[in-house]
């Protein structure tokens, strides 16, 4: 034991001696170096911007990428005489004096914090700043990273945007160690996949001079770039859809009916990710992603469900006819078909293309509200689709009591509310013969080395059983909608389109528009590869169908992108194609 005790003692002596040596080294040999560093407090940390992962479409085309840029930054600690600096900057780069002074006084910091004054400096601005560097203590040009979205507002709802991390976010996500000024995804995929896209910061420890300008690097830490996302989106369809919606309010969503892969998702108006403040004040709800959060009555598109229910329940045969005289009376109330004078005797093969309200109203009363709602539920209407985009709304599947009655329900004017995405899911079910695929936009997540971190495959939510006969009748009807019916303006020579128009009054208080026009379709009718839904606020369904046609033409024949649609003869370019059967409107129409 004494031996071991002595060894103990030796270890202790050796270790303490080692500490003495280290302190000798630091405090005597390296003393001048450390004293100099400490006297000026001149150590700063310069972070490399963290390169965020890229987002690409299914073909590898860039949708969002980080690009090197030069930013004007300032260090509150090194800033002397903010007023003079601000005045000089106003002269040099035309910045707003008041905003600058506000920024200077609002940012307090320890010696290592730097804040961005202006992103993306031009070459000219950089040389001006450098020229006057000596009069700008605490202000410098620093390489940084800037997020660019090649499609601009055309992809803003899908991708979202990056914003400066808020104080609440810093506090609520302590583990992430955010600092004021850090970027964080604030919307869309950038928000949902923020943790994966964000890399880990690297940085330099630098020695700075009395003006705060960098002298030399003391240490460096490598950064880790973020993961990248590959989407199911097809950039060319997304772009075409965005162009079509330019200046309008509405939405477009395209899906592959064979898998649920979203090919395009556009909502309009959009917002400029560089100017969020402006968008916040803009009218028409630019931050509303209408595809997933716009809740509309389905309008006549719902007639697909009414017809399915009628045929499947055996309440109507293919050739059973109803006479449309232009109006019908139900309990002292007069309901009108959209066509004055009526469609005459119609069977289901004519009623769907003509979108005859009398036919479907009669059918709906036979089917009953209970059954209609059951079929709506079967098609997952009024229920979140589960798409991997934040902010999805479910719509509303009412009970029988609050449904607004079987007649209103049958033509999509009841209390049922759906999103354009749910309409797309519905039309895709007809296209693929009964499968409800979960819609998704992210296909793969890749790490910085290109290795797959996670791959998302298609997910069958459920299969709706629809008999072959019913499907055949439905599909024929939808084709006829485009050949001679209300959706004729979507007709194109490149593919056979099958679809259904719809118009309704939006009961949703978020919308300023009273009516919307919608068109849900798939193409090619024989072998569908795309399901497409176009919804327009304050417009008719004919216009929506025309936009759908133009987008589909670019899908099926990318070369003809510039060709006009004038060759298409539009017989039923009606506006609106059917009236809204909510009570007050009925009264109005009755007076005409």
């Amino acid at each position, binding site marked *: 034991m004494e031996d071991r*005790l002595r060894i103990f003692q030796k270890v202790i002596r050796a270790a303490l001696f080692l500490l003495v040596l280290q302190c000798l080294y630091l*405090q005597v040999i390296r003393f001048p170096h450390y004293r100099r560093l*400490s006297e000026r407090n001149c150590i700063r940390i310069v972070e490399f911007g963290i390169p965020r992962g890229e987002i690409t479409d299914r073909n590898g085309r860039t949708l969002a990428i980080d690009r090197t840029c030069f930013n004007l930054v300032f260090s509150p600690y090194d800033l002397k005489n903010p007023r003079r600096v601000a005045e000089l900057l106003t002269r040099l780069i035309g910045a707003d004096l008041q905003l600058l002074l506000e920024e200077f006084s609002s940012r307090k910091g320890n010696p290592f914090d730097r804040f961005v004054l202006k992103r993306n400096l031009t070459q000219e601005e950089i040389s001006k700043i450098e020229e006057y560097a000596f009069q700008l203590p605490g202000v410098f040009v620093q390489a940084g990273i800037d997020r660019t979205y090649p499609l601009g507002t055309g992809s803003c709802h899908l991708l979202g945007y990056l914003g400066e991390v808020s104080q609440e976010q810093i506090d609520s996500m302590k583990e992430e160690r955010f600092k004021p000024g850090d970027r964080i995804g604030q919307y869309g995929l950038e928000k949902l996949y923020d943790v994966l896209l964000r890399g880990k910061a690297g*940085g330099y420890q630098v020695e700075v001079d009395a003006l705060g300008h960098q002298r030399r690097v003391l240490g460096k*830490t490598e950064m880790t770039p973020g993961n990248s996302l590959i989407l199911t989106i097809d950039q060319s369809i997304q772009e075409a859809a965005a162009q079509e919606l330019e200046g309008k309010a509405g939405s477009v969503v395209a899906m592959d009916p064979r898998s649920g892969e979203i090919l395009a998702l556009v909502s309009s108006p959009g917002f400029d990710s560089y100017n969020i403040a402006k968008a916040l004040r803009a009218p028409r709800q630019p931050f509303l992603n209408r595809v997933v959060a716009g809740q509309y009555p389905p309008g006549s598109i719902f007639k697909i469900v009414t017809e399915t229910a009628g045929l499947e329940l055996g309440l109507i045969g293919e050739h059973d006819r109803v006479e449309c005289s232009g109006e019908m009376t139900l309990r002292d109330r007069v309901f009108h078909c959209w066509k004055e004078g009526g469609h005459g005797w119609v069977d289901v093969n004519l009623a769907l293309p003509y979108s005859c309200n009398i036919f479907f109203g009669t059918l709906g009363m036979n089917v009953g509200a209970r059954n209609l709602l059951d079929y709506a539920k079967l098609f997952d209407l009024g229920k979140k689709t589960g798409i991997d985009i934040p902010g999805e709304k479910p719509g509303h599947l009412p009970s029988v009591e609050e449904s607004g009655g079987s007649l209103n329900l049958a033509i999509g004017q009841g209390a049922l509310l759906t999103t354009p995405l749910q309409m797309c899911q519905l039309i895709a079910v007809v296209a693929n013969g009964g499968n409800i695929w979960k819609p998704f936009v992210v296909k793969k997540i890749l790490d910085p080395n290109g290795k797959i971190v996670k791959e998302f495959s298609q997910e069958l939510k459920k299969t709706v059983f629809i008999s072959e006969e019913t499907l055949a009748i439905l599909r024929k009807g939808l084709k006829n909608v485009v050949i001679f019916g209300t959706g004729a303006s979507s007709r194109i020579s490149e593919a056979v389109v099958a679809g259904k128009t719809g118009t309704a009054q939006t009961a949703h208080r978020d919308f300023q528009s009273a009516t919307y026009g919608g068109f849900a379709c798939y193409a090619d009718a024989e072998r569908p590869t795309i399901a497409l839904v176009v919804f327009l606020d304050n417009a008719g369904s004919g216009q929506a169908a025309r936009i759908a046609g133009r987008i589909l033409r670019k899908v099926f024949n990318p070369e003809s992108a510039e060709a006009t649609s004038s060759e298409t003869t539009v017989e039923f370019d009606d506006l609106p194609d059917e009236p809204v059967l909510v009570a007050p409107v009925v009264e109005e129409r009755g007076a005409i």
Partner: protein
Amino acid sequence: MDEKISPRMVLFIESLLLSLIGLLLLFSASKGVVIRFQAVFLKQLVWVAGGIFLFFGFRNFDYRHWRKLSLFLYFFFIILLILVFFVGHGRAGRWIRIGFFNFQPSEFMKFVLIVGLAGYFSERQVERFSVFFGGLCITMVPFLLVLLQPNLGTAFLLLIIFFSIAYLAGAKRAHLFSVLTTGLLASPFFWMMLKDYQKQRILIFLNPWKDPLGKGYNILQSKITIGSGGIIGKGFLRGTQTKLAFLPEYHTDFIFCLLAEEFGLIGVLALLVLYYIFLKQIYNIMITTKDHYGRLIGGGVTALFFTQIFVNIGMASGILPVAGIPLPFLSYGGSALLVSFFCVAILYNLSKNSTLF
């Protein structure tokens, strides 16, 4: 003049002296830009008083009683360590609040493990593997609980206590080595059991540069702070590095920097000499006592104090990775201070009783 003061008195006087230095440094810290340090200084003052009170309370408490008490204490603190997972709070949830004060069961576990292992090994044939292995099991339970908090520094200290006491008790070198290698080989399995955030903390512990703007940054700053003190230091209350909060946590894990900056190499040497004398007194007590149990306690306390001193100063001066281990008597923290005084009290009694033989 040459009248010898007994080692136990030196021990007690030294612990007072060291606590006083700690208070002095915290007082200096309270003159800096961070306001909360004023409260820190006053609180530590209360803790030091509590420690002295504790010392006088237990100085005449026969150290051999701990042998009987240790089993009860062991299980009591194991339960508290489990409890911490449910009711713990504060940074990394290590504290338990009782009445007005928070305390850290893991700090007290160090002391309990020392008296427990000393008792266990002193009664048995440590050369036998089963006995050695039993001691290992006794250590592993609190070790794992503390590791999962996660409090790597204290967990590491518990292991050091085990190896030191086992070594002094006469464990075979082959046993010690086999346990070390098994531990290294088994570590990947532990790793898989951990949660992501725990892994993250351990990774940062092992490689501070993973957290370049946090702890990695601290290393350079703490070296600057120490180095800029020079030979004579900047003078009491005149440190600049620490005052401007270039170094966070300088009242706990980096308190050594404060001393090095204001009192320079002279202060550093004085502190190290004080610590050396302190450890030397324990050694003297161990040599003079004939009681195996008492010696093992001395060994455990030596290992505990020495490791804390070495790791803490080694970390601050940049030769060891950053670890949250307090400097005995100097760092702010009530639990650690009380445990230190407890150790002094037991050694005092040990030395007094052993001379009676």
